[in-house]
């Protein structure tokens, strides 16, 4: 009983010590530091493209990596072993479930236990991390990129989007800029004599026709046009709005940046959605519909249109044909507005970034070795392994593209966990494009490329506003609510304007001011 007293005191002392801000100083993570045998000359020796030229007498670089888990289980070592061989590294992957990833990230940050390579979760987490970045918790890697031939291929514009105060701290995981479009039931369109919609008006007409004209021919009024969900951004609204020429989050008006909802096109977009909903040509409860239920509406054969990421067409089709074997889907993009405007919105080009904590990477030498690893990742050999798997086992090459094997479970288990960690994109890292057999998917890929030409970027993507960081999300609720309420007819134009005014008075004005100040620089 007496032995417990000293141990309590000891624990308390330890805790008191730990609570005094050990960010970055305390290093008790699982990483062993990379061997310091490499000369620190400019131009990392092992950065040349073909991985087989890696000198064999060098000891492998040991790297610990933390990233979100997007599959049910953590993958086995199959892919990891292959990557280690190709890059002369010894890797320790720490996966953590995506939906609690932020807690883990913050706890690790708070205790200085972030590993060498830290993936964030998404753009939102990145914004939260900017404070820590500014505080010097991470390495500024911008100046080093030029020493790495493959890393230098990363797209300038997207790198700019991830800079903090003009400095680059991260590598990005790339995503196609603009893959939003329309997925629709081609068999229904054919039956009703409709061709692929070219304008927004066509889209509305199709939605109505699908609802009223019994496209499935069963004599029952059980079909609707559009299935949407409770997401104004990745659901239908933003995409539809962009077809009507609405700016992407922020647009220029008289030389000043203004939020998208102050533009007349935004109101026009709401009117279009309202029209569709009032005509009962979309699911009435879309403001409460989850993605699952939205997908169900489509795959059960009830709804005929889906506006969102065109790449979803494969999985939609898979379940749809189980229920409706005769169904045919197609994708459509490049949809024009009433005045011929042709535009679509672009994401900033990345969906996640990688950071390099100073607490884990002790010096420049180590940093360069870690960067060397990523440099090799940007080669077809390594990128393909991490994205597609091992050729012959997980995929085969057809027409110069990667065709996933039929053994989906094997691929899911062994490869998918690594897919979201590949930096760059196919154009820059040389990995294979996907080989798709579904017509609609092939069209989707073509449209995605075409979309880039007409994509509207968010001018504020790389800018910072202190007020936005503090309360931007909560203020956005005002606008989101107002948008839904307008579409549902609970708010009229005057009411909407009033909500905008509320948004402005509660901090929106400051946000506009701050973004503009940053814009001018």
């Amino acid at each position, binding site marked *: 009983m007496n032995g417990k007293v000293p141990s309590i005191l000891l624990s308390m002392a330890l805790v008191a010590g730990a609570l005094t801000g050990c960010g970055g100083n305390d290093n008790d993570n699982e990483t062993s530091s990379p061997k310091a045998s490499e000369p620190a000359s400019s131009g990392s020796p092992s950065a040349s493209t073909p991985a087989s030229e890696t000198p064999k007498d060098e000891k492998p670089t040991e790297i610990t990596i933390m990233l979100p888990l997007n599959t049910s*289980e953590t993958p086995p070592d199959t892919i990891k072993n292959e990557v280690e061989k190709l890059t002369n590294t010894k890797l320790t992957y720490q996966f953590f479930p995506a939906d*609690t990833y932020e*807690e883990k990230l913050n706890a690790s940050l708070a*205790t200085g236990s972030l590993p060498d390579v830290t993936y964030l979760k998404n753009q939102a987490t990145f914004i939260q991390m900017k404070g820590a970045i500014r505080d010097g918790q991470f390495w500024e890697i911008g100046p080093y990129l030029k020493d790495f031939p493959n890393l230098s291929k990363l797209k300038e514009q997207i790198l700019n989007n991830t800079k903090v105060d003009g400095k680059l701290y991260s590598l990005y995981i790339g995503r196609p800029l603009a893959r939003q479009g329309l997925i629709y039931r081609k068999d229904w369109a054919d039956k009703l004599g409709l061709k692929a919609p070219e304008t927004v008006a066509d889209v509305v007409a199709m939605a109505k026709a699908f609802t009223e004209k019994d496209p499935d021919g069963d004599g029952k009024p059980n079909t609707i046009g559009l299935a949407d969900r409770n997401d104004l951004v990745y659901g239908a609204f933003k995409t539809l709005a962009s077809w009507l020429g609405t700016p992407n989050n922020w647009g220029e008006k008289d030389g000043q940046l203004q939020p998208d909802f102050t533009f007349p096109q935004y109101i026009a977009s709401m009117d279009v959605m309202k029209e569709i909903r009032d005509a009962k040509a979309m699911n009435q409860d879309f403001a409460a519909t*989850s993605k699952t239920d939205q*997908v*169900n509406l489509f795959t059960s054969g009830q709804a005929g249109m889906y506006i969102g990421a065109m790449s979803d067409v494969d999985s939609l089709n898979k379940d749809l044909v189980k229920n409706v074997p005769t169904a045919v889907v197609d994708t459509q993009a490049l949809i024009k507005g009433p005045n011929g405007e042709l535009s679509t919105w672009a994401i900033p080009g990345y969906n996640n970034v990688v950071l390099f904590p100073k607490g884990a990477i002790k010096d420049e030498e180590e940093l360069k070795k870690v960067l060397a690893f990523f440099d090799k990742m940007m080669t077809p050999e390594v990128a393909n392994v991490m994205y597609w798997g091992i050729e012959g086992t997980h995929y085969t090459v057809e027409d110069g593209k990667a065709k996933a094997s039929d053994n989906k479970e094997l691929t*899911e288990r062994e490869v998918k966990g690594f897919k979201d960690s590949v930096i760059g994109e196919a154009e820059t890292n040389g990995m294979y494009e996907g080989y798709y057999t579904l017509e609609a998917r092939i069209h989707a890929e073509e449209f995605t490329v075409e979309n880039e030409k007409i994509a509207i970027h968010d001018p504020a993507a790389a800018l910072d506003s202190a007020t936005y960081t503090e309360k931007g999300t909560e203020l956005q609720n005002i606008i989101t609510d107002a948008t839904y309420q307008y579409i549902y007819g609970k708010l009229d134009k005057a009411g909407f304007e009033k909500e905008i005014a509320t948004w402005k008075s509660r901090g929106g004005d400051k946000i506009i001011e701050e973004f503009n100040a940053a814009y001018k620089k």
Partner: protein
Amino acid sequence: MVEDRTLAGRLFGIVNFALLALIAIVMMLPFIHVVAGSFTTSAEMAVKKFVLIPTDWSIDAYKFIFSTNTIFRSMAVSVGITVVGTLFSMLISSMMAYGLARRDLDGRQVFMFLVVFTMLFNGGLIPTFLVVKELGLIDNYAALILPISINAFNLIILKNFFQNIPEGLEESAKIDGCNDFGILFRIVLPLSMPVIATISLFYAVTYWNTYLNAIMYLNESKMWPIQVLLRQIVVLASGLDYSSDLDSAVPPPDQAVKMAVIVVATLPILLVYPFLQKHFAKGALLGSVKG
């Protein structure tokens, strides 16, 4: 059992029964839906929405879940933590509850207040994490047990029940030469089987549901209990991530899998309660001792 053969009594019994049966059915329905859904395909679920009897029988969902070692390993982990944790928690909770139930313990009011206080005030995730880390429990299964070894609510319930044991019994035990430990283990616990069974169940469920603590304290994914795996499947299948992020290059798992997961996750614990129900009949013992 006391029989009541008056008309009023019989009527009461029938109405009571009928109402309970109705309630039971209402409670059951969604559960049947989940079980039925797990035996069908996601395509059918899209159409039928609320499935009670699957027309398209398939055990694909279960095959998917059980096709790796991960599930067996993590289930073993969960069972281990639940058993050890429950025993440990019951031990120290009972001891503390009994001590605080004794009216002659000085300071018991203060102690109880301190306990209740912790139900209202909580240091938060990161400070607790810091404590656990400083105690060196990271990547140690003890981190899944120690930080939650006593639940204040459970403690209060135990104490309350222990208080109701007649003091006379304790007195006579003392005369027989028992010290306080003896009284607890030989008299009080046997007489408290209903509440012991109940609180054990509560602790068992908590340990079985361990999720966040596993993520926070165990970096080694091989050590994770089953709820991590299962919840990951459900969250992915629902497309439900609170920060509304999509954009993974990976499509989500089947809806039917989501249902199967729920069945697998709750079945073990569901089976525990009926076994515990046996102990609810022990009230009779008390009467005979008094007599």
